[in-house]
C-alpha cells in the first residue's frame, strides 16, 4: 500500500511557507519562536519524526514498559514488540531477523563493525576517505588504511585494489573494508556489488599467491577462507535506497533510526550469519551475546515503524523529493553567480543538494539564511565547531577556497514546494549581502 507522503499538516505547512511575506530584513530568531515556522533544509543532520512513528511508540512510553529480558507477562509483551520490529526491519533490509543487532545508533554500529568487538581486531581495517568520522577515526585508531575517492565521492576501485594488495603483500591481514553506501555530506552513492567484486578479486589473487608462497597472511587468517568482510555505513542511504538491493553485497550494515524519521538513540548493526563478530559492549548478553544492555523497546518499535514508512512510500517520496531537489539546484545555479554543484547530482541521494559558493564564508551565509528562517549546514553536523574544510570535500579535491563556501542543503521526506520557494528567494539575497560585506 502506498500512503500519501508527508505529514498530515503538509498542506498547511506549504501554505504558510508560500504566503510568507518577502523575507523581512534579518529577523531575529528568538529561542522561544515557533520552530515550525522554519524551513528545514538540513534533513541530513536529522529528519522529522514520522507521524506513524510517534503513534507506534506511544504505548511504550506508558503502559507497555516491560523489559524484554524478563519472562513474565510485561516482559513477554516487550519481547513480542521487539521481535515484530526486528522482523519488519529485517524485511526491509533484506536480511534474517537474527542478523539484526540493535545498537544506540550509527556511531556505535560503525565502531562495532570496524573494531570487530572486544578485543579489537589486530587485522587492518580499510575504508574510503569520505567515511563518517564514526568509521574513519576508528580505522585510523587501529592503524588501518584509507582509500581515495573519485571527483564525485565514490570509492576509487583501482586505489582500493592497490591498498588491499599493499596490505597483504606486507604480510598483514585485512580485517574489514568499510565503504559507505551514500555519503552524508554530498550524497554520492557507491556501487557495493562492484566494491565486493573488487575485494573478492583481490582476495582470490592473494589466495593464489599464498598457496604458492605460504605467506604470513594466509597463516594469520584463522578463518582460512581469505574472505574479507565488507561493511557499509548505510545511515544516510537508508532513508532513500532499497537496502535489499543496494546493500545486498555488504556483510555488515550500519543503520540509524533518526535519519529516516525515527527516534534518536536507536540503530542497528546488521551482521550476516557468514560474518563473525565479537561483542563490543559486554554485560547481560542481550542481542544473542553480540551486544549487551537492556533493549530500547520504544526506540526499536519507532525504528521499525520509520523504516516501514520509508519502504512503503519510497517510490513516491523519492520521485517527489528528487523533483524538488532538481528545482532547488537549478534555481540556485541560475540565480547565484559563482555557485557550483559539488558533485554530479545524477548519482546522489534524492534529497542531497551540496553546493560551493565562491567568495562566501559559509558560516556567515548560514547565519543570514537562519535569520530568514532557512536552515542548512556547512558540512556534516558533527563537524560544527571547526571551520576547516570538511575531510569529504578535501578528499573530493575541492579547493580549500571553494570549500570555505560549502553549503549542504538536504531535503527530507516531508520537504515541500514552499521550502524550495523560500530557499530560492533567501539564498541569492543572502549571498549578495555576504559578498557586499566582503566575505
Amino acid at each position: 500500500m502506498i500512503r500519501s507522503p508527508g505529514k498530515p499538516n503538509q498542506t498547511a505547512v506549504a501554505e504558510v511557507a508560500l504566503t510568507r511575506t518577502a523575507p523581512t530584513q534579518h529577523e531575529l530568531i528568538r529561542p522561544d519562536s515557533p520552530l515550525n515556522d522554519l524551513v528545514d533544509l538540513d534533513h541530513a543532520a536529522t529528519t522529522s519524526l514520522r507521524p506513524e512513528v510517534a503513534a507506534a511508540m506511544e504505548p511504550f512510553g506508558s503502559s507497555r514498559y516491560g523489559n524484554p529480558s524478563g519472562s513474565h507477562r510485561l516482559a513477554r509483551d516487550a519481547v513480542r514488540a521487539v521481535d515484530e520490529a526486528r522482523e519488519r526491519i529485517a524485511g526491509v533490509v533484506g536480511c534474517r531477523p537474527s542478523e539484526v543487532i540493535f545498537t544506540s545508533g550509527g556511531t556505535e554500529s560503525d565502531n562495532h563493525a570496524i573494531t570487530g568487538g572486544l578485543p579489537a581486531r589486530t587485522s587492518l581495517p580499510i575504508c574510503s576517505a569520505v567515511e563518517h568520522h564514526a568509521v574513519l577515526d576508528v580505522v585510523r585508531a587501529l592503524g588501518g588504511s584509507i582509500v581515495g575517492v573519485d571527483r564525485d565521492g565514490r570509492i576509487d576501485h583501482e586505489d582500493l585494489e592497490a591498498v588491499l594488495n599493499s596490505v597483504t603483500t606486507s604480510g598483514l591481514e585485512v580485517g574489514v573494508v568499510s565503504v559507505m553506501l551514500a555519503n552524508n555530506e554530498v550524497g554520492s552513492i557507491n556501487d557495493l556489488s562492484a566494491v565486493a567484486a573488487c575485494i573478492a578479486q583481490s582476495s582470490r589473487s592473494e589466495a593464489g599467491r599464498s598457496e604458492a608462497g605460504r605467506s604470513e597472511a594466509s597463516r594469520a587468517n584463522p578463518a582460512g577462507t581469505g574472505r574479507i568482510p565488507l561493511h557499509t555505513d548505510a545511515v544516510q542511504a537508508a532513508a532513500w535506497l532499497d537496502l535489499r538491493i543496494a546493500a545486498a553485497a555488504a556483510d555488515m550494515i550500519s543503520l540509524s533510526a533518526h535519519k529516516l524519521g525515527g527516534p534518536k538513540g536507536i540503530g542497528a548493526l546488521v551482521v550476516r550469519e557468514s560474518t563473525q563478530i565479537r561483542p563490543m559492549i559486554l554485560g547481560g548478553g542481550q542481542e544473542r551475546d553480540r551486544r549487551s544492555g537492556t533493549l530500547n523497546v520504544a526506540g526499536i518499535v519507532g525504528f521499525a515503524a520509520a523504516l516501514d514508512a520509508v519502504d512503503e512510500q519510497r517510490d513516491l517520496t523519492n520521485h517527489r523529493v528528487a523533483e524538488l531537489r532538481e528545482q532547488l539546484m537549478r534555481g540556485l545555479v541560475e540565480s547565484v553567480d559563482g555557485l557550483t554543484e559539488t558533485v554530479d547530482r545524477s548519482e546522489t541521494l534524492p534529497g542531497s543538494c551540496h553546493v560551493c559558493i565562491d567568495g562566501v564564508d559559509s558560516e556567515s551565509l548560514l547565519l543570514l539564511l537562519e535569520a530568514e528562517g532557512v536552515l542548512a549546514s556547512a558540512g556534516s553536523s558533527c563537524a560544527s565547531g571547526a571551520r576547516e574544510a570538511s575531510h569529504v570535500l578535501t578528499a573530493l579535491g575541492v579547493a580549500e577556497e571553494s570549500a570555505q563556501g560549502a553549503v549542504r542543503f538536504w531535503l527530507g521526506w516531508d520537504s515541500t514546494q514552499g521550502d524550495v520557494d523560500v530557499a530560492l528567494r533567501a539564498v541569492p539575497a543572502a549571498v549578495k549581502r555576504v559578498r557586499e560585506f566582503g566575505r
Partner: protein
Amino acid sequence: MRVLAALSGGVDSSVAAALLGEDGHEVVAVTMKLWGGESDTGCCSVSEVEDARRAAAQLNLDHHVFNFGEEFEEHVVGPYVADHAAGRTPNPCVECNRHLKFDVLLRRAELLGYDAVATGHHARVVTLLDGSRRIARGADSAKDQSYVLYTLTAHELDRVLLPIGALTKDQVRERAAALQLRTAAKPDSQDVCFITRAAGREAFLEQRIELHPGRIQDENGTTVGTVSAVEVVTLGQRRGLHLAGGAAPRYVVDVDLPTATVTVGGPEELLCDELELENLVWAAEECEGVMNLQCSAHGAALPATVSLQFGEQDQATVRVQWHEPHRRIATAQSVVMYAQRETTTGTEQVVVGGGLVR
C-alpha cells in the same frame, strides 16, 4: 537597539547581556570559538562555551557560536609567536580586542543587521560635547579595562556597548547572584587564554618556534646565570632568572637576541626619560600635549608630554617625554594615553589614543 552580546562564559559578560535585556534592547548572545588547542582559563574552552550557552538560556537569549579560529590564529596567535621570535613582548588581549571582538565580530554583527556589539569589559563609552565617543575608565578602578580597549576607532565606538562599566565587580556579582546566573561565582579569567598555566609560555612557543638558551651577564659582562630561552625574557623582568640570592634585586635591562645575551642591572638602569610609540590609534587631533600614560593593564597612568612626528614615509609615531624618569617598557607593549575631557556627563579622564612601544 538590536544588540549582539558577546558572552565569554564569565560573570561580567553574562550580566552585561542581562542588563541590555532589562534596558529593552533586543539581544542575541554569541560566543566566539577562537582557540581549539589547550586552555585552562580561556574564553573558548568547551566548558566556557557551555557556561555561556547555559547563561544565555537562563536569560532566555538565543545563543550562537561563531568560529573565528582562523582569524584568531592570523591576528593574535601568529603575531604573538612572531613577536617573541623577534624579541618583542606583545599583548595578545589588546590584539584580540582590536582584531576579533571589535573588528571581525563587529563586521559579522553588521552583516547580520545588528546595531551594536556589547561586551563585559569594565570600561565605559562616554560622549564628548562634540558628539564623538571615547572610552573612559570603568567604575571599579581595580578592574578597569579601558587600557585594552584603546584600539577602538570612531566607527567602532559608535557600535559598542559596555553595559557593566558603571558597576563595580562586587555589584556585577550581586546582579549575577540575584539573577541566579550560573556564572555568578566564577573566578576571574587571567593570563593569556591560549596558554595553559601548567605548561606555560615557553612550552607553548617551543612548539612553534626554535627557542635559544641564553647567557645572563651583569653590567660588567660577567656571566651570572643562564636562561633556557632568551625569547621569553622581557625587559624589566625580575623573577624567574634564578640568580644567586643575597644581592640587591636585579632586573633585565637588555635582551640581545643575536648573541642570546640577557643583561641584568639595578632598578635605576631601567629608568628612561623618553619613549617612542608606533602603530598608533588616536582620536582626532588629540595626540599632542600633556597626558597621562599607562603602560600596563592595571598600572598607574603617569604624566608625560607627547608629540606627533612623521617618519620617512609619513609614518606617524609619538614621542613621549616623561615628566619624571620612568621604567623602560618592553618593545611591542601597549602604552595608552589618557587626557581630561568634557563629556556630556562631566569632566573625565578618557582614552585619546595609544600605540605600541617601538
